[in-house]
């Protein structure tokens, strides 16, 4: 009967009930979206780190302190043996050589200074470029090049057109080679798209005239948390090979610190959302209860116990909390999925902290359950407060203090 009475009361005072439901639903929607945004940012950040940098990187000793970012003075000669040694370690899932270099890319009378990457045809890195391929593919043979759509627009080059890459090779001489555009990609990052192209690793070796060598070895482990132990175990071997070994934390240290600050900032935003939500919901429930003070007074006068009154108010809170949170969850999931499908363009700000310029909120079951639970819990706490205030009132005062 109490539950029925609560349900009937909610239906009877429909406008007020809808207001409370709206407050709860909007609050849960905001919580779902903020949680989704935070998760999306985290996923984007760690995906950038792990997918595009690996968990561990090896370079020639001294590479870290080079003045020219594309210096060819720190190449790893005959990397096959090193790669083979690394791949034997059971913790290693992938070890791959990458050859970054500076170049001038030319077509007709137009040219662009860019960073080139010599990569394996079956590379597992540069996910954004691989997944953002609009035409063709990453280079599979030594005469192929992959550029971004934006680079193509700037240089006036299309898919399958020839494109010249000019470099200063390891001897200090200028050297160029003509490639065919075999892949056009768009990553959503303007900085990446206008600054990066790909040729095969062997093509880069030839172009740069470095023989069988590379600049960087990227290693993926079974779990990123193994990186510190792996570094420690391999440090003696690496030193013997005249190599430096760095973990993802060391490579992206400043970004990680920045991201941790950002994480704390987002927790504050989350907390703020919860406080605003709690205030709005509690206020709406308090209004709902206090408008019926005389009714509760009557019920108390005819024998309703305080704990029963408490139960009635809580029942209404639970119904409103569950219903409002469910509506909010559905709306929040819908809204977040929509935003996730189109993305939020954060521009250069996101790129400067190691993220893609377009952020895609991500939904997880935990986030949904947490937001729904928070909505219900806040409604119950709000109802508890309203119940406590209401049951403390004297019956005569509930009638309006007639004497």
């Amino acid at each position: 009967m109490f539950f029925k009475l609560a349900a009937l009361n909610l239906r009877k005072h429909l406008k007020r009930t809808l207001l409370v439901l709206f407050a709860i639903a909007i609050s849960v929607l905001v919580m779902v979206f903020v949680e989704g945004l935070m998760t999306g940012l985290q996923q984007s950040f760690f995906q950038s780190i792990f997918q595009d940098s690996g968990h561990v990187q090896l370079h020639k000793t001294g590479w870290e302190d080079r003045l020219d970012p594309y210096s060819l003075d720190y190449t790893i000669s005959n990397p096959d043996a090193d790669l083979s040694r690394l791949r034997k370690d059971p913790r290693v899932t992938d070890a791959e050589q990458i050859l970054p270099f500076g170049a001038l890319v030319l077509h007709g009378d137009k040219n662009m200074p860019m960073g080139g990457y010599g990569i394996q045809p079956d590379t597992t890195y540069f996910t954004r470029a691989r997944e953002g391929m609009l035409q063709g593919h990453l280079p599979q043979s030594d005469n192929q090049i992959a550029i971004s759509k934006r680079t193509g627009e700037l240089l006036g080059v299309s898919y399958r057109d020839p494109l010249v890459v000019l470099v200063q090779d390891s001897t200090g001489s200028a050297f160029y080679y003509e490639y065919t555009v075999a892949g056009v990609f768009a990553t959503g990052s303007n900085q990446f798209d206008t600054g990066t192209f790909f040729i095969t690793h062997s093509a880069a070796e030839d172009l740069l005239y470095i023989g069988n060598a590379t600049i960087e070895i990227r290693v993926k482990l079974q779990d990123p948390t193994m990186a510190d132990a792996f570094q420690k175990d391999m440090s003696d071997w690496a030193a013997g090979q005249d190599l430096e070994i760095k973990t993802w934390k060391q490579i992206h240290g400043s970004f990680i610190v920045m991201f941790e600050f950002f994480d704390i900032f987002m927790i504050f935003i989350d907390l703020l959302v919860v406080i605003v939500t709690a205030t709005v919901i509690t206020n709406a429930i308090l209004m709902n209860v206090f408008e019926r003070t005389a009714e509760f007074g009557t019920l108390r006068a005819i024998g309703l116990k305080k704990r029963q009154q408490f139960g009635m108010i809580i029942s209404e809170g639970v119904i409103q909390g569950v219903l409002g949170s469910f509506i909010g969850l559905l709306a929040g999931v819908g809204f977040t999925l929509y935003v996730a499908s189109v993305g939020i363009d954060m521009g250069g700000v996101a790129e400067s902290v190691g993220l893609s310029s377009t952020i895609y909120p991500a939904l997880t079951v935990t986030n949904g359950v947490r937001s729904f639970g928070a909505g219900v819990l806040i409604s119950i706490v709000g109802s508890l407060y309203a119940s406590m205030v209401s049951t403390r009132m004297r019956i005569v005062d509930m009638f309006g203090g007639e004497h």
Partner: protein
Amino acid sequence: MAVLEVENVHKVYSLGKTELEALKGVSFTIERGDFMSIVGPSGCGKTTLLNIIGCIDKPTSGKVLFEGNDVATYSDNQEADTRLSRMGFVFQSFNLIPVLSVSENVEFPLILRGVEKKKRRGRVKELVDAVGLSRYSAHKPDELSGGQRQRVAIARALVNEPELVIADEPTANLDSETGAMIVDLMGTLNQEQGVSFVFSTHNPEIMKYAHRIIHLKDGLVDRVEGDG
């Protein structure tokens, strides 16, 4: 035997820095089967007195003995149990639960007492029939006239077979003819069911139905009329 004894009851309200003495030492007794009216002008303390009798308010001093027990010693739950099982209330503004039907309003105190469903339904039907509202048992209060609503309130007050029904100005919101019908109904139920009734009014036409009349004036019993 007395159902209720009121002994030298005082009630003082603090209104900021001033104090208002609503009752200044009221004493009387309600016997089993009484049909008593408390009358007096507005502000004389009728509602305060009925609230104290009904365990809704506490006296500042003095005693209220319900069936020989001092209600001042009751806990909140005992007071609620007494109001639920031993007393019935009828209010000036009917105070029905708007979202419940006539039957459900009458049934509600039985639910609070934990009476089983079958017994509840039988008792509710009996009472709704007794107040002449069988046709309206599924109606909501806002679909009824004032007189009909007050009859629902009377049925609700009687449903737990109380010793005492307290009615605060039960006819104040009704026209004189309907008011007379309501008091007549209360009188009939008093005769048929042996329930004690105490009701307040300032309407001379209504007070004449009472067997005993207590006149309150300025917080004191001015005089008592009737066979008590």
